[in-house]
């Protein structure tokens, strides 16, 4: 027994539940409620979406037509056609172009902020990028309509500017800030001792980045890109406003398309609750849910891969 406790006896009344004991209990309870509610809400949303659309998606919806037909005629009587191909291709093409825009921009910005900018400039840039990430998507859509639209018409001499090109550029600019922030975090997680060791070997700044920093931040960078892709798939308002919103199998970036998300947003308010159309829209919701869930899961796996190697 240590010097401290020698001669100490347990006295009657030592085992009391003081205020700190009660506060501990209360704090634990509050934190538990907060944590569990987040999970409950997600599960509830999933159950709601599934309940509204899953039965229809599995038993009534013709999956062959849904995945291969470009005809989205949900209100045609007596035989509506629920072909989702044009919507899927629309979302995929806009997201793909958005990534072509966003990946170079965001990785370049992250490398500049993380590796080249110093002191004050670096802090300002970081705040600025985070501000950009906070611009509401409807504002981006507005920019697409009023700025990019006439620009495309003038620049390429085409009749309409609300196209894949427009939506892709807007979505890319929109996704870039958040991707930059995550990519920069990944670069920051690379220990400075790596950079010093490589510079001491006589490597130039670019050689250090290329040979040491980027490879060791690889998983975090992949996660940043995947989250950007997820963002692109899920984005609604900006795409709705900038893409032209016409059901169409595109053949070039100058074609208008319609996205999965925009279809739900535009049509759900006008359908009768429980109708086929209503349920078909929920089926689209399930598809989106699965895609974004898979992408986020992949991003999570990539980030975990980074932690495990440490």
């Amino acid at each position: 027994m240590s010097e401290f406790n020698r001669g100490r006896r347990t006295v009657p009344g030592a085992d009391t539940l003081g205020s700190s004991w009660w506060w501990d209990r209360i704090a634990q309870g509050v934190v538990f409620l907060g944590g569990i509610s987040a999970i409950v809400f997600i599960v509830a949303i999933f159950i709601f979406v599934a309940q509204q659309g899953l039965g229809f998606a599995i038993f009534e919806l013709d999956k062959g037509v849904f995945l291969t037909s470009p005809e989205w005629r949900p209100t045609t009587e007596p035989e509506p056609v629920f072909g989702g191909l044009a919507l899927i291709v629309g979302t995929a093409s806009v997201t793909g172009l958005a990534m072509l825009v966003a990946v170079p921009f965001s990785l370049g910005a992250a490398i500049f902020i993380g590796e080249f900018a110093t002191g004050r400039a670096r802090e300002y840039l970081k705040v600025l990028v985070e501000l950009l990430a906070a611009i509401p998507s409807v504002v981006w859509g507005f920019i697409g309509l009023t700025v990019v639209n006439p620009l495309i018409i003038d620049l390429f001499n085409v009749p309409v500017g609300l196209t894949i090109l427009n939506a892709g550029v807007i979505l890319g600019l929109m996704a870039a800030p958040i991707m930059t922030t995550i990519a920069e975090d990944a670069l920051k997680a690379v220990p400075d001792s790596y950079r010093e060791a490589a510079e001491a070997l006589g490597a130039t700044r670019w050689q250090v980045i290329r040979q040491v920093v980027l490879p060791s931040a690889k998983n975090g960078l992949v996660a940043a890109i995947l989250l950007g892709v997820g963002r692109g798939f899920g984005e609604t308002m900006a795409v709705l406003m900038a893409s032209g919103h016409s059901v169409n199998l595109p053949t070039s970036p100058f074609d208008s398309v319609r996205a999965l998300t925009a279809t739900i947003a535009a049509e759900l308010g006008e359908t009768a609750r429980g109708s086929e159309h209503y349920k078909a829209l929920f089926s689209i919701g399930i598809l989106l849910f699965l895609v974004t869930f898979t992408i986020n899961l992949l991003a999570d796996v990539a980030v975990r891969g980074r932690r495990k190697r440490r």
Partner: protein
Amino acid sequence: MVETPLLERPKKLTVENLSILYGDQVALNDISLDIRENEIFGIIGPANSGKTSFLRAINRMDEMSDDMLVRGKVALDGCDVRSWRNVYALRSRIGVVFPLPVGLPLTIYENVALSPRLRGVRNKVELDEIVERCLSRAALWDEVKDRLDSLGSLLSGGQQQRLTIARALSQEPDVLLLDEFSIAVDPVTTMRIEDVLKELREEMTIVLVTNLVQQARRLADRTAFFLGGELVEVGMTEDLFRRQVKDQRTTDYLEGRFG
């Protein structure tokens, strides 16, 4: 072979009136000394006496941190390091071994092959040769030759430190700077590395910063004693340890009476 007496050899590094400041805090105050070719130059002293800052000034690592200010002159082969336009070429002539081994997140092979690759060696045979030679000279080849493709960071601490020495050697440097290399290394490995250093002295100039007084005694030709940013004394190691010292503080430090 008759060895040229130490003080008649050409000066490899000349340091004149070197001061280093972090903000308004003085890390090193007006130091002048020279380091001869093929010498092991030991630097001893307690923490915060400016030893690491001294090393950083030599290969201009200060340029990586905004707040470190260097005044005075450091010359390599008589040529001021500040006047080098290509700082990367300067750094590639100076190998550095840090206190804690920094295994870059690469394989053992890649760690050693990195520097030759940076300077443009592409030939696989040539690279293999460099990797084997450097690992052998760092007394690590026998332990890792069967797993050159595994990650360098998976090696033990002592092995990683020898890997960083091999990596520094792959630069084919003129000058090797070692900063308390034995901090994370067991005594047996320390002895092995010390033997390696004794051999390397034939080919390069070594600056050895150490907090182990006896290590300086075993290895260094000359030893400098830094205290609180000042150069208290520099002299032949034998002399210092025979108590032929000029300053009472040196005796106190060497005998461990310091506080």
